[in-house]
């Protein structure tokens, strides 16, 4: 009885939680990276519980009912209608409850991942075989992604040849980049960190070598770097013409 109540509560909770979370307005920015890590640990528990139950029961049956008598036959009774229905509906209800619970959890994380904070620093990304190019708010361009610690960053991304994908492993995020569309992802660099972004959608010969550095640096360092980039840009990239990344405006 308690189990049944628990199940009902789960189901209702799961059904209500998703939309409720979707509608919730967040004043505090939740870091999608830590939220992912947290959800992963919870899902691992779910997997180990289900796997453990089935694994142990299976192993127990395999050992307990083994015989060397080749003429022996099994002793399972045929199920009557009630038992047959129960053995279909109860597991189905449990699986569905778990599915809805996981859906609700997944959806609430998804809302975090897809709701770009209003104060996010916008950087444009152009993927070309086989490199990424980043365009900063002041128009400076670089093949490395340098971001200030503490400020959310949103990447507006497109490609000019084939499909690529922006794999930010350290931040637990990724999104494809393709011609003719602008996709986005955002992340929150909460501490100084040097990592890599790698292309994770097969794009041909140089796919394995398509990566850039991602450096989260203190705000002052970022500002200084950007100022230096701006000066260089006028001399280096003059007359280069509009790129699709510019056309995104």
């Amino acid at each position, binding site marked *: 009885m308690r189990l049944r109540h628990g199940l009902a509560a789960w189901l209702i909770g799961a059904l209500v939680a998703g939309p409720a979370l979707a509608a919730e307005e967040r004043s505090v920015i939740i870091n999608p990276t830590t939220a992912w890590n947290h*959800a992963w640990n919870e899902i691992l528990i779910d*997997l180990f519980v289900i796997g453990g139950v089935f694994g142990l029961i299976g192993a127990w049956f395999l050992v307990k009912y083994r015989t*060397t008598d080749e003429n022996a036959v099994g002793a399972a009774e045929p199920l009557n209608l009630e038992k047959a229905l129960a053995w279909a509906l109860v597991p189905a209800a449990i699986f569905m409850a778990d599915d809805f619970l996981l859906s609700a959890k997944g959806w609430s994380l*998804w809302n975090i991942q897809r709701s770009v904070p209003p104060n996010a620093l916008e950087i444009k990304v152009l993927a070309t075989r086989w490199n990424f190019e980043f365009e900063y708010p002041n128009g400076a361009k670089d093949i490395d992604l340098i971001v200030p610690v503490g400020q959310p960053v949103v990447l507006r991304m497109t490609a000019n040849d084939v499909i690529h994908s922006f794999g930010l492993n350290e931040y637990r995020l990724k999104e494809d980049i393709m*011609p003719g569309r602008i996709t986005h992802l955002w992340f929150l660099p909460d501490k100084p960190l040097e990592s890599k972004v790698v292309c994770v959608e097969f794009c041909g010969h140089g796919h394995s070598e398509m990566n850039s550095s991602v450096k989260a640096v203190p705000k002052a360092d970022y500002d200084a770097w950007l100022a230096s980039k701006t000066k260089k840009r006028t001399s280096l990239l003059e007359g280069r013409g509009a790129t699709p990344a510019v056309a995104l405006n």
Partner: protein
Amino acid sequence: MTAITDHAPAPAGFRISEWIFTTDHKRIGILYLIGSLAALTVAGVMALGIRIEQGAIGESGLMNYFVLDFGKNLTTATAYNTALYFHGAAMILAFLIPGLTGFAANYLVPLMLGAPDVAFPRINALSLWLFWAGIVVALLTFVVPDKPDIMWTGYPPYSIVTDANTALYVFTVHLIGFSSILGAVNFLVTIIYMRAPGMGWNQMNMFVWTTFAAFMIQIVFVPVLAAAVTLLLFDKYLNTGFFDPSRGGDVLLYQNLFWFYSHPAVYVIFLPAMGLLYEIVATQAKNPIFNYKAAVYGGIVGILVITGEVWVHHLYIAGMPDWLRIGMMVTTLLISVPVGLMVISLWGTLYKGAITYNVAMRYVVVCMFLILVGGLTGIPLAITSMTVHLSETSFVHAHFHFIMGMMATYALFAAVYFWFPKITGRSADSRLAKAAFWCNLAGTQVTFWPLFMIGVRGMPRRYWNYDMYPQFEPYHQVATLGAFITAVGIALMIVGWIVSAMRGPKVGPNPWKSRSLEWTHAESPPGPGNFPKPVTVSQTWTPYDYHV
């Protein structure tokens, strides 16, 4: 029907023309098996090449030899991509699907139904020929200079702008797809109309049910794949712009069409594999299928209903609308309901059983745990926000290898061992077979657990080199070691089959004491027309009535 039973009497001796032009479902099944094992071997050699290349950071210098580029005209990257293309395309299209719905369905379904052959034996032969033609076209990969390098998925725009030969991929899919459609027509008609008199739908073998469902999927979804790859052909060679956004095309259209077929294709493989496991478990535990109707109408039919509404989980990070990525997360997770019912039914069949272990049953036991690992690791991959990190990593790669590369593959291996006495009259349960089993088990586990571990930490798929992640190298080394152990296992297994077919101990017509028609009513091996006299069954008969 009479025409089918009017086969010539069993020939004395071996004549190659009788095999090439055969319309006998058993011989067609065996020819499917030979073709699919050939594909397994070549695609397996590609896997070894892939593992060698990934075994250490930097160029191994060996990759070109694996794709028969002895002059080293290709770069390591292109040779590696060619090997990956062939490994994926051949394992799915030429090994697993033909192995399960070609060999196993052909050999077993008419026998399990008590039928003398399939409904359209000549169309059956045409299916086989198309399959072999598909294999030949696929093998041209190693002959042409512009080897396909587009992965088994063939995503545009890359597959259109590449210099490589996308046409070979398209024609391979066309030939094997057409073979599948004809097979589907044949087997659906056979199962609907050619059951032994008295055999109701609820008295069919689980394998027949799963075959029925697999071919329902094929007949609905294969044409979509055929359309998708044909559009690729037009875009690449006729300069149409279906997938070119600068000319009004849609860059994601192909991925949607491709996965609209290719996710259901997972069930074209998974369902018959499960069907084989059910047959072997019921026989070896001498028990009826636990909750047969729940497994059939909840499990198999449930998968049929949901299978066409889940494909977007392959496009979770592909830039689909945010809301669509949520809808299909729910449907994808709900797949756990029918699959769960099938798993419970399989587990439950062991309950109070009298379990004896032959080589087939060993593989089945392993499969039961592989389903757990493969199925449960699919759960995070069903959740949109989790794939935002896990997608395109070796976690995905390890996940589907647990289902396709191990569970479905071992179900097929188990089937060969289990029905070997039926096919040859001899047993294949030798010491060689047991040694091969342990090598296969150890090798695959050693290969794929490290890939799970580095996958969670972000090891990207389809990378021949990964010098930005030197911390993953030891894991790759272990995985490569596993591949060699598996290769030894597969080689021992195939040698064991050949030796056993010629010199294995002769066994009686029903060595496992099964209650299914192919064992109780047919000789081993069955002659032309399958049954010495027409089969009828009573209303209470089932293939699993061990207690009667």
